[in-house]
């Protein structure tokens, strides 16, 4: 068909397969983007700022002589560079992001807006406290919510992320043991094999010795195994609950009793708290310390790797052993106390970071929590668990679940048993999901399951979205069974990049841009 200017309006007679390389290397919206070091120039700036009037510097002999080698771009060029880069990223706003343990849920924009209010964003941590009462009030209110939801007696707000919270909790335990005079005798921390790598890494960082506890056949830890591993040398157990297999530890109360009887403390990795908010309070289960990843459970955005925030709730036994600074209400005013003797308990174990924590994340998390309210928070946990079980059941007959068909919490775990002998690995399967427009699930974690695939749909997905996800994965499994290896072994085909060579990256690390060596004419060859 032609329109009345004679312009063809059909889609073309037949559309033959076309694989010609383009001149630019771009493919329509998929553009190549050079590095700023290749397109920027040191004399260009995207910021107008005038040189100061002449003055006498006070730099002594230390004025910079070393070149900076920092390229600049004008503002339009800068916008284009970063917008083009952004277009090479997958994001929760663009699609289901079933990264188990990482909790990629919706990030409400209200939270972004509020965190940017000048009264929060443009406030200095060392302003007089009389000028930051609202900021301190926000921290106090958020602490109250976290304590109510966990049953805790206190909460340390300064940890910067989950792993930092682990460090905080384990330091509190170390301080409590030292106060009992058992600092040098209790050296062992029990860590199940299924634990996240940060758990053993944290324990080792402050001189604890890690003793592994095997998981049972069914993916959970038995109180009996804990009891047997306990002795006078045991400082604590680090247990994730719900655990990294997506299961609530059925014997958690007995495990807590066992560790307490043996004189140790119960550190709970709260990365999966999002499954149980409003359903059960961890401290009621016997937990002494637990970090909460605000960037998981309470939806502060991950930002491509951070920042996060990892407040640590503490039981009555550990509450005195928190890090400085302390927030105290003195009449109508809130004060920040930094001196150990002023905290009143005389037991603050020190300081984890400069200033007082991830305020920007606190604002976002409180906004999220207030938006949900007690009813919405519980509903969110229930929906997360419902969606995960729906995925589990929807895929249970075509993939293999290591622990049979027992219900899961907020994430469904599969292994690679069903892939054995097919020539397709967990990695291949994950990469084929990319071509279907999905971010893969967490793979090869937890380590206790062969070729693990940990799927966390979260409560943010509609039923239609979860249905399509299930149907897509089912289709992929049928493809595996039909032996369509090409769909997997070369995947992804349609992503901004084909599979990347990680071995090469590690063998000859190139960790920064360096100017290309000048091409030197080889005269001898002429």
């Amino acid at each position, binding site marked *: 068909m032609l329109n009345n200017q004679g312009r063809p309006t059909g889609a073309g007679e037949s559309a033959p397969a076309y694989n010609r390389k383009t001149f630019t290397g771009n493919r329509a919206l998929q553009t190549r983007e050079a590095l700023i070091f290749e397109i*920027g120039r040191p004399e260009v*700036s995207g*910021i107008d700022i005038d040189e100061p009037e002449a*003055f006498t510097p006070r730099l*002594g002999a230390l004025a*910079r002589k070393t070149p*900076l080698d*920092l390229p*600049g*771009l004008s*503002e339009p060029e*800068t916008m284009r560079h970063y*917008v083009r880069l*952004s277009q090479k*990223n997958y*994001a929760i706003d663009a699609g289901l992001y079933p990264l188990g343990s*990482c909790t990629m849920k919706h990030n409400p924009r209200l939270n972004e*807006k509020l965190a940017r209010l000048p*009264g929060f964003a443009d*406030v200095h941590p060392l302003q*007089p406290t009389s000028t930051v009462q*609202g*900021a301190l009030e926000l921290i106090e209110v958020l602490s109250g919510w976290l304590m109510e*939801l966990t049953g805790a007696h206190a909460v340390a707000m300064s940890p910067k*992320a*989950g792993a930092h919270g682990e460090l905080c909790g384990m330091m509190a335990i170390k301080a409590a043991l030292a106060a009992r005079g058992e600092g040098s005798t209790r050296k062992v921390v029990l860590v199940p094999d299924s634990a996240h*790598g940060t758990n053993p890494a944290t*324990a080792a960082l402050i001189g604890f010795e890690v003793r592994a506890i095997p998981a049972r056949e069914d993916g959970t830890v038995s109180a009996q195994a804990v009891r047997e591993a306990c002795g006078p040398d045991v400082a604590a157990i680090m247990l994730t609950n719900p655990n990294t297999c997506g299961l609530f530890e059925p014997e958690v*109360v007995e495990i807590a009793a066992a560790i307490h009887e043996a004189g140790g403390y119960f550190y709970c990795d709260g990365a999966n708290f999002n499954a149980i908010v409003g359903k*059960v*309070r961890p401290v*009621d289960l016997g937990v002494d310390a637990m970090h909460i990843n605000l960037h998981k459970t309470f939806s502060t*955005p*991950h930002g491509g*790797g*951070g*920042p996060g925030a990892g407040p640590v709730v503490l039981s009555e036994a550990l509450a005195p052993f928190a890090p400085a600074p302390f927030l105290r209400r003195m009449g109508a005013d809130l004060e920040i106390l*930094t001196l150990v003797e002023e905290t009143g308990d005389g037991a603050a174990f*020190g300081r*984890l*970071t*400069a*200033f007082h924590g*991830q*305020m920007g*994340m606190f604002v976002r998390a409180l906004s999220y929590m207030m*938006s949900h309210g*007690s009813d*919405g928070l519980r*509903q969110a946990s*229930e929906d997360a668990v419902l969606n995960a079980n729906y995925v589990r*059941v929807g895929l249970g007959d075509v993939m293999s679940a290591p622990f049979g068909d027992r219900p899961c919490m907020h994430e469904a775990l599969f292994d690679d048993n069903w892939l054995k002998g097919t020539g397709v690995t967990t990695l291949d399967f994950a990469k084929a999901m990319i071509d279907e427009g999905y971010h893969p699930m967490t793979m090869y*974690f937890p380590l206790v399951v062969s070729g693990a695939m940990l799927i966390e749909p979260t409560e943010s997905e509609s*039923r239609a979205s979860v249905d399509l996800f299930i149907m897509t994965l089912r289709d992929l499994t049928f493809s595996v069974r039909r032996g369509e290896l090409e769909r997997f072994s070369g995947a992804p085909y349609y*992503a901004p*990049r*084909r599979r990347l*060579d990680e071995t090469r990256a590690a063998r000859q*690390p190139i*960790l920064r841009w360096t100017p290309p060596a000048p091409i030197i004419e080889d005269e001898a060859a002429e």
Partner: protein
Amino acid sequence: MRYLPLTPEDRTSMLRRIGAPDIDALFADVPADKLLQELPDLPRRKSELEVERTLSRMAARNVAAGSVPFFVGAGAYRHHVPASVDHLIQRSEFLTSYTPYQPEIAQGTLQMLFEFQTQVANLTGMEVANSSMYDGSTGCAEAVLMAHRITRRKKAVLSGGLHPHYAEVVRTLSRMAGDDVMTMAPDVLAGEDMLACIDKTVSCVVVQTPDVFGNLRDLNALAAKCHENGALLIAVFTEAVSLGLIEPPGAMGADIVVGEGQSIGNALNFGGPYVGLFATRQKYVRQMPGRLAGQTLDANFERGFVLTLSTREQHIRREKATSNICTNSGLCALAFSIHMTLLGESGLRTLARVNHANAVKLADMLARVPGVEVLNETFFNEFTIRVKGDAGQLVERLAAQGILAGVPVSRLLPRAGFDDLLLIASTETNTDEDRAALVAALSSQLAH
């Protein structure tokens, strides 16, 4: 609830599909007596309007730095952040993605991190940088641990000019890990003799420049003495803009350079989130903490980027990892990198000169105020003054007049005999009116 797409009908039919009689059947592993019957004792859900109203009321109780003459620094600095920076970091593809575990669909983040690492390395004068730490203080503690691993020694010597919070973070971690720390006395005039503390038992010396009192430190002699003794020199900075104007630690022999990157691209945020910058020599890269983006090729031999050298990290090495860090400060690193790209070398140099010029102008004005003594010989955009009387009370009185005058040293070092010292920072955001207001208010306060 506006964030939850499942409808009551969805829930019922999904439960039926799962074969669960009700939602609590899925919570069957929770001990029955622990499963909460009542909702938590907290308010019910709120509309967007209500939440905004509640939190805005809290925000309004704070004095925003931009609303008053503002001279507060001591480890966090107010700079102008271009509008495009905040716009770009709020793009969904950056804001709502995870750590780039699947590089084929995370090239945006990975390339940005590679660029960030190069910018940090060039800024600090080092060979390699990682893709960020939580902040400067935790980066500093990690640097000490890294030095212990490299030297197989366990004793750190901290300069008296190191930000007291940083020193406390290092001491806390060291105490817990069973390592030794020696902290020099706080040193307002930068006259400490650190050379005398270096011997063959020392793992590392940690020096900040500009130091917490604002003095610039020449690191060359320290580096030489460290290296003679098999120790490492760790250089710390809390004001990244200073590196646009002063000689970088890498050019003075530092082995590890750590610092706070908040100044570039990031707001004050009442203390966080910030971004720790961490750089070192190529030969130490395998002892570095944190994530590293590296260049490689894809199956079509196209250039691409991946997270690399992860055999250092907790998810592979577990208790033998170089650090426990997992989530870092990716988005703050992005903000830093975009702002740095906008500045470019020429913009950064000018920005740094304007900061220095403003601080010099203010120092000269304050030096003429009776009852004020400017203590620094050298400084960048922050310096220490001695005032007549108690600096903490003075700052409170000035705050009541609507001027945020600086950080009393006693806030950082309580009861240490520094009650009359005040740190004053001045950046490009200060105007002549701001300076005049501070000088006038100080003069009248000190005249009493």
